[in-house]
Each structure stands twice: as C-alpha cells, then as structure tokens.
C-alpha cells in the first residue's frame, strides 16, 4: 500500500540514457521498482541496465504492456514535452525530477495534467517512494526504514535528514513524497495529506515545509477544519532567511510579504500541529503527540 506507487506499479524512465537517468535507473531497479522501459528519442533498440529503450512511450507500451507511471530526467528545456507525452499516453503518475523548468511552462502542464486527473509529482523533486515496494526518485533508500509515518516535504536532503532522525527514534516511513522546490507544483500538502488519510498503512504524517508561498498556512486551515484526522508534526526550514532572497529553490523566497517562517509556524501550531525547532526534535514531538 502506501500512496500513489506500490509493488505493482509499472514505470518507465524518460531520459533514461542520460547520466542521471541511467544512474538512478540502476538504483531504482536495485530497490525492486518495476522499470519496464525507458525512453530517449533516437536511442530505440539500446538497453540501460537491461531496460529496453524506445523513442516514444507509445512504442514502449505497445511492446512492454501497460505502464502506470513515469519518472522524468529530461533536461529543463525539453522536460515539458516529456511531461505532455506521458500525460497523453495515459500514465497516471508523472514524477518530474528536472530542476529549472520555466515557470510558465510548469503552469501550463500542471493545469493540463490536473484537468485529466493525472498526478504530477514535482517538478524539482527528489521523487516518491513507498518504502520496501517502489522507488521513483533519487533519494538514498537506506535512510528510510519501513514503518507507518507518511513523510511529505518541499525539500531533498533535509527530508533524508529527518527520515534518519525518525529512524533513530524508532519511526519508519510508509511513503515519502517530495512536492518539489518550485513555486508551482503538481501536488501540495493538502492533496498528499488526503491520500495519507485514506491509506490504512499510514498512522501519522510528518510535514517538512520551508519559507515561500502559503502552502503550509493553507494546509493548517484545512487540517483545522477536519473532524477525522491523523496526527501531524511539522518542521519548517528558513527561520533565518532574509526577505526577498531566493534560498536555493525557486520557491523558497519570502516575497510580497508572503511566506515567512513565523506565519507558517503560527498557523500550524494554532491548528494543533506541533512544529519542531530542529530536525532532531521531530521524533520527540511525534512520540509525544502519539502518546496523547
């Protein structure tokens, strides 16, 4: 179980012959992910770590059978094209690892996907992994112990850090999902939390936010309005970030007075979501919350 991907998910890798694409195909295969094919225009007939390569998704499906999901490693300027191809080929989940895609392109393909009921994870995400079942991403798998906490994050390495702390505190993960570091992403905290609510293998959720935008605040008011909920603990990065500066991620910027740490923290705490001061505090707060 877990959300969005599991042991029966059949996936393809778009941009499989590139350096990152090939490297992570190997790691995903080692994890047990069912990678049934890859695409790379002009490279049909070759193999990457035993995975057959096609020019188009359509060919891949014709020869390898149905595909549920794709992971995109295509460079920024060609990535939107790859995403449209995946959506039009009927895939249900498209994980966009690529960083640096123009904002207006993202707006267009995210709206296109949502109207068709297709889930975009990212862009600019470490991916998604249902622990022990399926990894469509670039996260170091060994950090994530199997367990019953859903992990949803806007960051990459910080997610690994907190997953490690959770593991040390005795908490494993059901599914970990990176929303992506760009201002506009396919999924937000509310979308993912709803999925975790439905997942019988998830008991609690850890939310890792950062400065910029108001996704954390919106989640807080949504959470407050629920009558049936699973407990949530949060960590927000960027307390020391100055306004107007882009902190690495395109989305991590306090602009036009929106997106500062204090407002996110206040909103979450008022909604009954404890916010950890440091990554190491996350398991402590979670234990306290679960003990009631």
């Amino acid at each position, binding site marked *: 179980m877990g959300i969005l991907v599991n042991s029966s998910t059949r996936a393809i890798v778009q941009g499989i012959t590139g350096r990152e694409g090939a490297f992570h195909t190997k790691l995903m295969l080692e994890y047990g992910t069912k990678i049934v094919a890859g695409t790379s225009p002009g490279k049909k007939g070759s193999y990457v770590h035993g995975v057959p390569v096609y020019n188009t998704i359509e060919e891949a499906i014709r020869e390898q059978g149905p595909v549920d999901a794709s992971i995109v490693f295509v460079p*920024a*300027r060609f990535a939107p094209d790859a995403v449209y191809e995946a959506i039009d080929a009927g895939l249900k989940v498209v994980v966009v690892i690529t960083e*640096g*895609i*123009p*904002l*207006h392109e993202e*707006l*267009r393909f*995210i*709206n296109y996907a949502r109207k068709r009921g297709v889930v975009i994870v990212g862009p600019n995400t*470490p991916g998604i992994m249902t622990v022990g079942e399926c990894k469509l991403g*670039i*996260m*170091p798998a060994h*950090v994530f112990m199997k367990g019953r906490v859903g992990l949803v*994050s*806007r*960051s*990459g*390495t*910080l*997610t*690994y*850090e907190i997953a*490690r702390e959770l593991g040390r505190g005795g908490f494993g993960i059901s599914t970990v999902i990176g929303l992506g*570091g*760009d*201002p*506009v992403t396919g999924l937000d905290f509310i979308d993912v939390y709803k999925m975790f609510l439905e997942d019988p293998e998830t008991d609690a959720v850890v939310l*890792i936010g*950062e*400065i910029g*935008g*108001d*996704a954390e605040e*919106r989640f807080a008011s949504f959470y407050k309005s629920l009558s049936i909920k699973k407990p949530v603990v949060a*960590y927000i*990065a*960027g*307390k*020391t*970030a*100055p306004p*107007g*500066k*882009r*902190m*690495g*991620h*395109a*989305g*991590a910027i306090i602009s*036009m*007075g*929106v997106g500062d740490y204090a407002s996110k923290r206040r909103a979450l705490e008022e909604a009954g979501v404890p916010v950890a*001061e*440091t*990554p*190491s505090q996350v398991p402590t707060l979670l234990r306290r919350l679960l003990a009631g």
Partner: protein
Amino acid sequence: MKLFEYEAKEVARKYGIPVPRGRVAYSGDEAYSIAREIGGEVVVKAQVLVGGRGLAGGVRFAKTPEEARELAVRLLGSEVRGLKVSALLVEEKVCIARELYLSLTVDRAMRKLVYLVSDMGGVEIEELARRYPERVERIYVEPEVGYTSYMSRIALSFLGLPWSVAGELDSIMKAMYKIMVDYDAELVEFNPLAYTCDGRLVALDAKIIIDDNSLFRHPELQALHGRELSEYEKRAKELGFSYVELDGDIGVISNGAGLTMATMDSILHYGGRPANFLDIGGGATRDRVKEAVKLMLAHPRSRVLVVNIFGGITRCDEVAHGIVEAIKEAGVYKPIVVRMLGTNEEEGRRILEEHGIKVYVDMDEAIMTAIELAKVR
C-alpha cells in the same frame, strides 16, 4: 530577477502602456536637462531594487531644473534602504485624482495567473491584502485561454472607474498579459496606477520580476542577472553556487536548499549566528567543494565554518578531498567543523581524519561545537 523601475517602464511603454514622460539620469547635469525638456514640476526617483523608497527619501519633487540637479547630486551615491543609488528616473509630475493598484502574478495555490486589482494604490500589496482583503479583487486567468476582455470590465467595475477609460484599461491589462508571457515574468505590477485629474490611466510605478528559470531563453536579460547581488554573492554565483549573505559569524556550507536552511536555523536555535547560506547543490565534485570552502575561508566575517553534508548523489569522499585541498591552497586558518553522512561516508571520514579533521555524525553536536569555537575566537 527584478528589473529597475526605469527598465520596467521602458517595457511598459514598448507595449503601449501609458507611463509618465521621463528618462533615466546618471548625473546632476543629465537630471537638469531631462527636467528642462519635460518643463514644469518633475519627480526624481532613486533606482534601487527595494520597496518603500518613498518613505526612505528616495522619491523627491523638484519645481525647477536647477532643483532637479541639486536633488540628483544629493541622491546619487547615497544609500536608500541600504542600497547604493547609481541611477535616477526623472519624470513629469502627474496630477493624480485616484491611486489604484493593478498587477498580474502567479497564484501558487490555484496554479494560475491572477490579476490583483485594488482601489487603494500606493500601499504595498502585502499590507493591502492583510488589512483590507475585501478591497482586493482577484481575477484568475486560465492558462489555455489567456487574457480576455471581460476581465477588464470586472476590474473597471470593481474600481468604480468611468466607462470612458474602459478601452484604456482593457489594453493595459491585455499588454500586461503579453509582457508576462513574452518576458517569462513572475510579476508585472503597477502601483500606483493613477487615474489622472484629466481622466486618463497612467502607470506611475512599474515593477517586473523575471523567472530565473527562464533566463536561458532570454539572452538579452541574462547579462542583467546578478547585478543586485553583493560581492560575495556574485563570486559564489560565478562559481555556480546558490549563495545568500547573512550577518552572523558562522560560515555555512551544505548540500540542498532545505538542509542548508535547517543548518542556519539550528545555529540560531543553539545560540549562534549564521554568516551565510551556501548550497553546493547535488553531486558536487571535489573541485566545487574546494571552491566553496575557499570562498568561506576567505569570508571576512565568518570565524568558524560548518560543513553539513547528507550524501545522496553527493559523495562524502569527494567532499573530504575538496575540504583538504581547500585548506592546503587557502593558507588561511579557520576552524572547520565537518558533519558528514551518507554515500561513501567511511572513506570521507578516513580522508579527513588523516588530516586531523574530526568528522561528526550528529548535526546538533557539530553545530554546538561550531558555536563554542566561534565564541572563543
């Protein structure tokens, strides 16, 4: 990337949006001759990429060209809200009947472009939205449809403007959408947009922010990128790092934006002050790590360096080699506290310990050590 007001107004003018007559000046004499050309009272505006210029004395009025020259001489080279003024915009003074607000931006939650419209121009939009949410109208744009004229009629009615300017407002909003798309902008804002005493609409201030991810397809704008950065930010950017200057004394190098921020925040939490944000990105080679460490060893304010690496794509042995080489080359001594974990961790630790550098596994412990070291230096 932000455009200066005078640049944003040039863009606006090119797209047929009415802006006051005027030009950019870099000296008192230039200000004088522009004011003479315009005739009558002018406004002299410091060109700095920061809000709240008016309150900080960056916007002044001059009745005569001589006065404009005097003001220009005083403003040029001075600082407005911490930023040095090197250019001025000299413009005709417009007779204002009403100050309005009009912008086109991205609504992250709705994942759409949205026009924000308000009858309370001149106030910063964040304050407006917080204090008078009912005074801000939002008009969403479907990406597949784009701008269409009824949107301007909604805006006109919300603003209570006469029908005589309906056509003008329509062409302004249409042009804003075109600028947004053509320039790959995140924001096109006119605040205030004036309804003048003689019944016209004029953009008194203009702000355009370009999406950094799109700069690759705007070669003409690429050259402008990075000019608002500090010297250190520029150097870090040239090296390809994501860098932000802060005001503390503990230098920070980490991988990934979230972890870098968490490192800074934890330093603050345990009683220290971070000097900077430096994200080496994913998969950094030893050379890049070396450059990052050298940059921070030379950083004047930082007394101690924290290197916090969670290896995924990034390999700890590469990081270790980079640190060792940087220390050899820099010839500057500063304590370096290394916390390293993940891919090739053992090899990385061995390399550093051979050179007498202790490697921490626990992030909190590393940060507390760095804070202690900063205190005694």
